[in-house]
């Protein structure tokens, strides 16, 4: 028998060998030499982490106790790989397309990148995996003790062995699992080592099988006889359990974090899955092929010991086959370590991505997720998580004290992760699935599973809180895990399975139906369910060659055929290749992206190149960046829109100006026509009478005098008209020079009244004034102001139709201005004419007979505007009222 030291030495050599293989594989992968690394066989072998030490040793034990029931563990995955191959392919495609890093990421991604959901799945996975890791450590420790014999083992604490194993595994996982934060999260070194372990595992069990059949028994016929006679053949058949465990195993192969890691995350080529579709079931068949013979032989062999779980090891030892036993030991060691390594890797990814990093980001508030600082933090988090997961497993192992209850933990863990299944399947197949449904389902299933299976298992292994569990919390029997809902569960596993998955599925569907998905959930739902429409398959390294065509087509669309062609040709020449298509090397892709980003923005360019090269790896961050660029483009287009609105407004203003000009032109014509009329009318009289006077026909003196008088009056009318026109023209052009002096308002009024010939007692119009209020000093052009007053007074003289015409002049001082109102007692201006009176040549109908061309008010208003005041007509119930406003700046206290 090998000494303990020898065993340790073998282990160390074996581990060193694995390290070497991993290093080599990692190096070759970095150099781009894929070789066997990228073969479907390696992928298939890496899937064998499904068969852990629990199945490696435990399958024989299970067969010895329960007959063929152990097969269910293999049957489930076989059914999935053969029957649900389409589902696996979809999962792998989604994983690549969405850059999924773990099962928690998968669920979270699908349901709108929900951090809470990711954390929930992570906690679930860690809780499920911790006892499972403990189980692996136990099996390694146990096999050590069996192999090395009690004498040697006595000197060594079992816990110490476990901690060495745990530490070694942590080191290996950290070295090969966290070398870098690669975007695709693949670990070729680690996978290679696992593939080698898978081979060792298979060889060991096959070797024992062959030895048992041909070395112990006399060939297959004898073996069959022995099986016939052994209790294994007569083991009771439990259909429900068969069905349940088969389903559980099928769920586990889809949901176990470590299986997801190798199946989806480490997949480098979608076509490998096709090989695995038949090769993995074959592997399972081979590894389970000799389980029954070994169990039968073990049961019949005196020296094989009492623990059927160790028959694989004890049978060769009992038969003196040390070499074979050593191989088996290494096989078991491989099964345990490969499971622990991948589980630790997968769990650490989940822990760091979904629990540690979010918290760290919260604390530090980093805004650049790609900074080096951030990468270092992520790597540290990953490493700490690996150590943490292994420490948890070790802690659980120490807590349980290596109790037998650990053996049940495999299926318990299966059911734990199976809680993810409804949300996973629903997410892939049903666009209507929502975060609320997934959260409710997983949460409820998790609680039921934890309470019915995990807590009792922990209680059993640790001896704590057992009484509470038996009676139910608060004495409520229906809450007791032993009798949930009052059911007398004969098989706690099946009861818990039906309850937890049933409630889980119901809540998932119900929650999804009653809640509405967020926009991101909708987007992700579509990306998941219709993944084949949104992505391209990933075909390993050689896939890139065909991509050059696609890249060229895309580049032509964006850059134009000429520019794209030149870019590709020059790159091809630089690479020393014939033809127009360069190898899509990272350098070239970077250059292409730069060129494209000039046209479509960096994020979009990256996403587009990624679509073609990386197999549709468009992350949400990429999408957001694209959205940003789109927003910029929209901003630009809205600017364009604003400009076009501006143009439209300018056009409208031009139209308006044009209309105004047309109107002005029309007004000018009307004005000229008016002037023509106003000039020709007096000229007609003048000409007619002057011709009469010139004629030789005799005229009496009275007629001669009268006609001369008319000619004289009409000439004066012409002169006045011309004066008014010139006055208005000067005022309107703003070229008027004001002669501002200090003047008393009352004096200006006196002058105006005198000029209009309206002084008291002289003329028809009676004036009413308030001399006290008129004592206001103004700085203004007194002549112009008087002109306005004269116009208003003479208007009253002309148009006031009262029997006893009277004009009331009132002066009011207001803050900032002074107002002079001229109100007559006539019938006033008809409302429809009030808006016209300030127009040139406008005269109220009643004014037709009166002299004047209708320019007076127009001129007066212009004057008041020049003086900084105003002239308005104030509508009143009786008489016409005009108000002259003078500005305060012209005021000074009297």
């Amino acid at each position, binding site marked *: 028998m090998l000494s303990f030291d020898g065993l340790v030495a073998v282990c160390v050599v074996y581990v060193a060998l694995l390290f070497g293989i991993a290093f080599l594989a990692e190096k070759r992968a970095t150099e781009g030499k894929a070789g066997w690394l990228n073969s479907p066989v390696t992928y298939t072998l890496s899937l064998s982490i499904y068969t852990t030490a629990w199945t490696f040793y435990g399958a024989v034990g299970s067969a010895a106790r329960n007959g063929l029931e152990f097969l269910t563990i293999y049957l489930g995955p076989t059914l999935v790989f053969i029957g649900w191959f389409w589902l696996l392919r979809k999962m792998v495609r989604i994983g690549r397309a969405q850059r999924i890093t773990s099962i928690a990421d998968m669920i979270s991604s699908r349901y709108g990148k929900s951090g809470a959901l990711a954390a929930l799945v992570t906690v679930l996975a860690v809780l499920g995996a911790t006892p499972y890791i403990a189980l692996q450590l136990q099996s390694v420790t146990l096999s050590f003790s069996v192999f090395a014999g009690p004498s040697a083992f006595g000197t060594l604490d079992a816990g110490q062995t476990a901690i060495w194993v745990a530490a070694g595994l942590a080191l290996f996982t950290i070295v090969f699992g966290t070398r870098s934060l690669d975007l695709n999260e693949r670990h070729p070194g680690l996978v290679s080592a696992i593939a080698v372990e898978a081979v060792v595992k298979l060889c060991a069990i096959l070797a024992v099988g062959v030895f048992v059949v041909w070395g112990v028994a006399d060939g297959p016929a004898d073996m069959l006889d022995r099986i016939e006679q052994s209790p294994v053949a007569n083991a009771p058949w439990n259909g429900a359990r068969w069905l349940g465990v088969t389903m559980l195993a099928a769920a586990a192969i889809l949901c176990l974090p470590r299986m997801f890691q190798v199946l989806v995350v480490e997949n480098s080529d979608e076509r490998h899955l096709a090989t695995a579709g038949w090769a993995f079931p074959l592997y399972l068949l081979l590894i389970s092929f000799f389980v029954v013979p070994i169990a039968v032989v073990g049961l019949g062999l005196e020296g094989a010991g009492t623990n059927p779980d160790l028959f694989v090891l004890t049978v060769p030892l009992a038969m003196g086959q040390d070499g074979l036993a050593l191989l088996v030991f290494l096989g078991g060691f491989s099964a345990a370590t490969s499971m622990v390594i991948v589980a630790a890797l997968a769990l650490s990814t989940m822990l760091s991505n979904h629990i540690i990093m979010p918290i760290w980001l919260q604390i530090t508030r980093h805004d650049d997720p790609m900074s080096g600082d951030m990468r270092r933090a992520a790597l540290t988090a990953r490493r700490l998580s690996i150590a943490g997961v292994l420490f948890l497993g070790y802690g659980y192992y120490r807590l349980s004290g290596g109790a037998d209850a650990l053996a049940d933990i495999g299926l318990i863990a299966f059911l734990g992760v199976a809680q993810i299944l409804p949300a996973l399947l629903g997410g892939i197949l049903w666009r209507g699935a929502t975060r609320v449904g997934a959260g409710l389902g997983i949460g409820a299933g998790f609680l039921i599973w934890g309470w019915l299976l995990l807590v009792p298992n922990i209680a059993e292994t640790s001896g704590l809180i057992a009484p509470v569990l038996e009676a139910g919390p608060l004495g409520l029997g229906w809450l007791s895990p032993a009798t949930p809902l009052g059911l007398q569960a004969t098989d706690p596993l099946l009861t818990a399975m039906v309850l937890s998955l049933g409630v889980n599925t119901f809540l998932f569907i119900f929650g999804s139906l009653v809640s509405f998905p967020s926009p991101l959930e909708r987007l992700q739902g579509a990306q998941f369910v219709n993944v084949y429409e949104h992505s391209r398959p990933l075909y390993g390294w050689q896939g890139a060659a065909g991509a050059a065509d696609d890249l060229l087509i895309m580049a032509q669309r964006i850059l134009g055929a000429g520019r794209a062609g030149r870019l590709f040709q020059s790159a091809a020449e630089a690479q020393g290749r014939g033809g127009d298509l360069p190898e899509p090397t990272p350098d070239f892709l970077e250059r292409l992206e730069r060129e494209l980003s000039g046209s479509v923005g960096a994020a979009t360019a990256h996403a587009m190149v990624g679509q073609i090269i990386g197999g549709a790896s468009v992350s949400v961050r990429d999408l957001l960046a694209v959205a940003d660029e789109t927003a910029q483009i929209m901003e630009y287009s809205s600017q364009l829109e604003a400009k076009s609105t501006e143009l439209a407004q300018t056009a409208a203003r031009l139209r308006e100006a044009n209309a105004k000009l047309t109107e002005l032109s029309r007004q000018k014509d009307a004005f000229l026509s008016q002037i023509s009329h106003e000039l020709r009318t007096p000229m007609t009289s003048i000409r*007619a009478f002057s011709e*009469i006077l010139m004629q030789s026909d005799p005229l009496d003196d009275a007629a001669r005098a009268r006609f001369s008088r008319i000619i004289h009056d009409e000439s004066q009318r012409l002169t006045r008209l011309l004066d008014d026109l010139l006055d208005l023209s000067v005022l309107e052009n703003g070229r008027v020079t004001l002669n501002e002096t200090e003047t008393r308002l009352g004096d200006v009024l006196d002058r105006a009244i005198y000029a209009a010939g309206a002084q008291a007692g002289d003329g028809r119009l009676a004036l009413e004034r308030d001399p006290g209020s008129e004592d206001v000093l103004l700085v203004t052009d007194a002549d112009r102001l008087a002109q306005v007053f004269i116009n208003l007074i003479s208007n009253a003289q002309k148009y006031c139709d009262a029997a006893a015409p009277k004009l009331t002049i009132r002066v009011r001082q207001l803050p900032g201005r002074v107002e002079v109102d001229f109100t007559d007692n006539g019938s006033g201006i008809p409302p429809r004419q009030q808006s016209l009176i300030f127009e040139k040549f406008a005269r109220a109908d009643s004014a037709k007979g009166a002299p004047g061309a209708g320019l007076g008010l127009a001129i007066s208003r212009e004057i008041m505007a020049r003086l900084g005041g105003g002239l308005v007509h104030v509508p009143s119930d009786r008489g016409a009222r005009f108000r002259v406003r003078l500005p305060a700046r012209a005021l000074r206290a009297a």
Partner: protein
Amino acid sequence: MGGRILLVEDEGNILEAITFILSRAGWEVQGHGNGATALEAVGRVTPDVLVLDVMLPGRSGLEILRDLRATPETADLPVLMLTAKGQAKDRETAMELGANAYLTKPFSNAELLETVTRLAEAPAGTDGG
């Protein structure tokens, strides 16, 4: 020479001048300061020629002309339009509406007499003569 002339002109001085000129030439002139009384007078007086100013208070000379032409009794009445607006467009409008002659103010006395005489002698009027 002789005959009856109805004159519609709102400018008092021009009314006086035209009345004087035509009367001295032997015409019987009836003057009106606005269109309303003139229209009423047309039916009563049955003038040989109507001398009508365009710019009248209330209804314009052109409107009166249109009414006259629309009434069978006065459809053929010779009408001389007077206007102080010198634009060609006004002349066209007046002729289109059926004016027989058109004088732009200021006009010469001879021109006025000549035109009135021509209109009165023209065989347009049903009862002119």
